[in-house]
């Protein structure tokens, strides 16, 4: 009995690596600490009622933000572990298999569990407020999306201490990811972690598309809508078209592994290249899914901090829509070397380069917006200014990669690594950070400290170039991606050392940001006006943080930059019409079902990971029970009475 148990434990838990034992201890201690604090301060009910069951888009947004910052930390630690290993030749810090696990979890986490939720955080926090709406179209579904993401991410991260991490790369190409080559449970964790959170992402896409189409304030035409909301519209459409492909691709891989099917195997007629095609039919749109909202953020910020209307609004909208369509026709550029033939490769080379055109249009529009504007170098603007050159270089190296014959040289080299980090960090991460700085006062009611922020900004930026510029050269010198070590004779040592120094500088930048947030919670400049940047769109017309119903009375909009126009009119003495009588506000009730249902998904996923059918079935039955419970629930809304609205508004110093 005891030996059996021992046997089980030694395969169930990841053993043998001191780094992981350290992590085990840290996880147990943190959990105990959290439970203790919550119990000691009697915060369980508060946590459950105010957060875990909340369907308020603002709170869901904050939960996304916290989770994504934690994931940025985990992905960042992975990155630093890899850069430590590569700093000098022949280092024995990580073994080959451990290195494989780390680049896999780093890539997967950074894209699916860091970038996606950070993007959803901003969707949730900003879009309803920008549209003058009281919530998203389906608040319950919104909460469910969050919890699916959360439990999917938990499942994925668990692989680190239980069962073993996936190690077949962030896209898990077969046949490497098949049973024949990866018999462990790691790939199952990969599949189910992404699958569960992916369902949530798909639902979010639908939710925000409908929100934007149907919930805009009266009078707000689509062509008056703020550009961030436009970017969300464009991204939602891409999510709706791309994510079903991911769902099926991963499902087929799982059917191969679980039922012994032959979709992607080397035997019995399977076709591994079909997987590569399918995963990139999702994967390429996915990179645009994460970058388009960043474009939206930059547009808002450039306009606000140049004190000018955005230059070329219509071309901004059209370029985003064109990018979202084109992004579905470029996937083969990830494997020109498959040998599809000159005709196919030519098509995909041209379609890829074509994306450069609308992107260039956007760059010029941002520059023209700044031209002769009264530019204020606040933190959001700093990150935006850093983005432009970074993305231009990243885009140029992307066009280099798109030259199909040349790609036979660059393919899977460090040149590629440098390219995609430049667009992902310089485009996506800088953009989301800019957005977080920009909307932070709207979320929390205070600004983030400027001085610490400048330190963070410069260390991140200098670190970025120090880290990734040498990698372009390393690529030309023949260094391929996913190598865990190299010899002195290769001549790669100096540049790798420089690169690793840059990585640690970025790590210091992140620490500055943690410090900045902690410091500003106490000492940050409070935002009492609701409009700390003298901005232009509707979210700045209400108090910070926004009351739970957002708008006491629904605004009426008749032009672009509605809040700016309103302020101009007030200044000119043409004050707004007297506020009309308040009405009771219709709100959705909180619900525990989303978190419980997602937890059951977690149980089912865990069961499938270990092929414990009883557990998988139990989890799925739980999911079904939750769905039915929701279907039979009719009492799902309530009204906020007028008195309460008056009291809330008065507490913000806004009499009605």
């Amino acid at each position: 009995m005891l030996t059996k148990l021992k046997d089980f434990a030694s395969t169930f838990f990841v053993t043998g690596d001191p780094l992981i034992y350290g992590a085990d201890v840290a996880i147990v201690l943190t959990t105990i600490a959290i439970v203790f604090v919550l119990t000691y301060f009697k915060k369980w009910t508060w946590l459950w009622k105010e957060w875990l069951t909340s369907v308020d888009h603002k709170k869901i947004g904050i939960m996304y933000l916290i989770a994504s910052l934690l994931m940025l930390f985990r992905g960042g630690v992975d990155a630093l572990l890899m850069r430590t290993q590569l700093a000098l030749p022949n280092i024995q810090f990580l073994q080959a298999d451990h290195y494989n696990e780390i680049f896999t979890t780093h890539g997967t986490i950074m894209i699916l569990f860091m970038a996606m939720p950070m993007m959803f955080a901003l969707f949730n926090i900003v879009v309803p407020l920008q549209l003058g709406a009281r919530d998203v179209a389906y608040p319950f579904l919104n909460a469910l999306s969050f919890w699916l993401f959360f439990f999917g991410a938990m499942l994925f991260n668990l692989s680190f201490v239980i069962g073993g991490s996936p190690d077949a790369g962030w896209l898990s190409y077969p046949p490497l990811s098949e049973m024949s080559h990866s018999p462990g449970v790691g790939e199952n964790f990969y599949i189910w972690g992404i699958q569960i959170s992916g369902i949530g992402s798909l639902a979010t896409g639908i939710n925000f598309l409908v929100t934007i189409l149907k919930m805009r304030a009266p009078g707000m035409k689509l062509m008056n809508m703020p550009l961030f909301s436009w970017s969300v519209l464009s991204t939602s459409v891409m999510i709706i078209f791309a994510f079903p492909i991911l769902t099926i691709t991963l499902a087929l891989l799982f059917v191969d592994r679980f039922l012994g099917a032959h979709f992607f195997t080397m035997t019995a007629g399977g076709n591994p290249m079909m997987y590569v095609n399918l995963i990139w039919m999702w994967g390429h749109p996915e990179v645009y899914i994460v970058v388009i909202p960043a474009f939206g953020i930059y547009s808002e910020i450039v306009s606000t901090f140049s004190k000018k209307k955005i230059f070329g609004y219509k071309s901004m909208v059209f370029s985003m829509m064109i990018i979202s369509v084109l992004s579905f026709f470029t996937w083969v550029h990830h494997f020109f070397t498959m040998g599809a033939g000159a005709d196919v490769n030519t098509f995909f080379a041209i379609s890829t380069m074509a994306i450069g055109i609308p992107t260039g249009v956007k760059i010029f529009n941002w520059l023209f917006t700044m031209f002769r504007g009264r530019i204020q170098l606040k933190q959001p603007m700093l990150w935006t200014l850093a983005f432009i050159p970074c993305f231009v270089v990243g885009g140029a190296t992307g066009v280099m990669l798109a030259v199909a014959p040349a790609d036979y040289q660059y393919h899977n080299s460090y040149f590629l690594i440098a390219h995609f980090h430049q667009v992902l960090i310089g485009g996506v991460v800088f953009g989301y950070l800019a957005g977080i700085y920009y909307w932070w006062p709207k979320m929390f009611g205070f600004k983030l400290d400027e001085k610490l922020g400048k330190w963070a900004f410069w260390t991140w930026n200098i670190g970025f170039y120090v880290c990734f510029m040498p990698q372009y050269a390393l690529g030309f010198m023949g260094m391929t991606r996913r190598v865990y070590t190299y010899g002195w004779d290769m001549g790669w040592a100096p540049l790798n050392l420089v690169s690793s120094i840059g990585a640690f500088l970025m790590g210091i930048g992140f620490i500055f940001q943690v410090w900045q947030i902690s410091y500003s919670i106490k000492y940050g400049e409070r935002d009492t006006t609701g409009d700390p940047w003298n901005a232009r769109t509707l979210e700045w017309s209400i108090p910070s943080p926004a009351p739970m119903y957002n708008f006491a009375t629904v605004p009426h909009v008749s032009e672009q930059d509605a809040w700016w126009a309103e302020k101009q009119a007030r200044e000119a003495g043409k004050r707004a019409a007297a506020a009309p009588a308040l009405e009771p506000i219709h709100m959705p009730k909180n619900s525990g079902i989303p978190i419980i249902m997602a937890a059951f998904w977690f149980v089912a996923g865990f069961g499938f990971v270990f092929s414990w059918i009883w557990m998988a079935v139990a989890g799925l039955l739980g999911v079904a029970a939750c769905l039915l419970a929701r279907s039979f629930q009719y009492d799902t809304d309530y009204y906020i009475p007028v008195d309460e609205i008056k009291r809330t508004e008065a507490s913000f110093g806004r009499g009605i």
Partner: protein
Amino acid sequence: MAHTAVHQASRGQTAAHAHAAEHHDQEGLKILGFWIFLVTDCLLFGTLFAAYVVLRTHTDGGPNGKELFEVPGFVAETFILLTSSFTSGLAALAMNQGKRNQLLGWLAVTALLGACFVGFEVSEFAKMAGEGATISRSAFLSAFFTLVGTHGLHVSLGLVWMTAIMLQLRRRGITAVTRRKVFVISLYWHFLDAVWIFLFTVVYLMGVM
């Protein structure tokens, strides 16, 4: 500035009126969301179809469609499912006339037909597996079982869902909410029917030809 951009909308409705309107909006919103969900489901099936078409000929020396598919079986399945789509239409008709019992009756018939369909499919699968044509025999069979099975799974889930709605109809009668629910499930049902037509053509007809 000629006019004010943001002035507070005064709708001048009585609160009660506003509530009713909001309720109406909400049901419409949910139906729109469901349409978009169907788009995603369409893409789901589209991907499966693509995989099937690629792997159709990859039988690895094992049985092919011509040897496996039995014409009477899949024709019967087709008739049953098409009829159930028709009866779900009759259910919607009864609902629009406000006849609750008739509505319940047609939904029950629809669900029964759906259950028959699933029964046929299960026995078809079992028979094939019994002959050694399992999901792991060849890439063709992997794609076949996954594609057709995903459709069958959709129908089965639809059955549970339809039963739940029937219970709610019995308890609450035809209201704005139950009306929307019936509308949505019948959309779903017709959608599965349309997918089956493609399955019938691409998998079965082209398989036996």
